[in-house]
């Protein structure tokens, strides 16, 4: 529905536009404030993520996750998508602080989603999942529960997204979210794997 112009006549108050665009893009300032909040209270923001990283025993996991995140990104970029500057790499980057609108349709392509079907990715994931059970057994119950909760949340998100994509297969945003969710899963699996192999325990 097109919003009526100022000179247009309306016969009901409901015909007035509910949305009015501000004269400037407010997102850059909002994003800057969000970043300040996150920087000022990393513990508070960490409390909301699926894998809670509170407690001294888990502090190392944040660093490991960062390394794993980069490793997974590089691995995917090198081995699965021709050219590491492809759309998946773009999807991995933090949001740019620009005034431009961020159209959903330009962010992801079918190639983003296709990588999860790549045999090499599937093998890697299967191997990590196989070793996960043994690794879980060595963890303290509290940590084990957190990892399980985290993976369950990721699994649920994948199911929801795949269901939504079933209804709207061309939705680039859903495709991108699905890719991000698979990456989250890979990150958690890699973190657990590396933590166990380092001999430090969790």
């Amino acid at each position, binding site marked *: 529905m097109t919003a009526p112009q100022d000179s247009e006549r*309306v016969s009901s108050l409901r015909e007035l536009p509910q949305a009015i665009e501000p004269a400037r893009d407010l997102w850059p300032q909002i994003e800057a404030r969000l970043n300040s909040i996150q920087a000022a209270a990393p513990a508070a923001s960490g409390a909301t993520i699926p894998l809670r990283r509170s407690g001294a025993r888990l502090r190392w996991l944040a660093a490991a996750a960062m390394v794993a995140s980069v490793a997974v990104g590089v691995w995917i970029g090198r081995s699965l998508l021709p050219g590491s500057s492809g759309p998946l790499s773009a999807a991995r980057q933090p949001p740019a602080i620009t005034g431009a609108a961020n159209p959903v349709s330009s962010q992801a392509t079918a190639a983003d989603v296709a990588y999860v079907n790549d045999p090499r990715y599937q093998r890697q994931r299967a191997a990590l999942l196989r070793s996960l059970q043994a690794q879980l057994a060595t963890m303290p119950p509290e940590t084990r529960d957190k990892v399980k909760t985290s993976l369950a949340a990721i699994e649920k998100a994948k199911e929801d*997204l795949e269901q939504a994509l079933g209804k709207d297969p061309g939705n680039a945003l859903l495709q991108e979210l699905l890719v991000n969710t698979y990456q989250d899963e890979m990150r958690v699996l890699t973190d657990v794997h590396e933590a166990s192999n380092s001999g430090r325990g969790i």
Partner: protein
Amino acid sequence: MTHAQVENTRVDWEGALVQRACAGDTRAFERLYREHSGRVYGLCLRMTRDAQLAEDCTQDTFINAWRALPKFETRSSLSTWLHRIAVNVSLAKRRKSTPVEPAAEDKEAGAPGEWTLETPVEVREIETAIGELPEGARDALVLHALYGYSHVEAAQMLGIAEGTCKAQLHRARKLLRERLGVEVN
């Protein structure tokens, strides 16, 4: 795809974004901002009548929403939730600059959400007339007649009694009728 399917997809889509934003993904939150900022800003602008103040309110609304996002239940409407925050922020900002206006209650039964004009009026003219209404009457009118909230919902958002909300609507209707020179039904 039917309208209901489109709506379901939209809700799924929004739920997925909320989940990601809860996990600290500011990019997902930006998508939510892009989806809702126009309506939030429109509400703030109509409540404050000041573009700069409305921009501040819009920013604060999304900052508060970010902080409270883990408490948001995805089964409810994100739009309504954001509007509640926007109303609170706008009222708080406004209270700093203007005294709270006392509102008299009366027995006005309230009107249905659809406010029609006997004769069509230019958008500019009616927006000006709404902007010139006293704050209490304007708030109730904007939430009820423009954004479609019920008396109860509008009263809850504004932190006033339902009867007060109805009285404010009655007053708004009377003043609009006088200023526009047309019957408001």
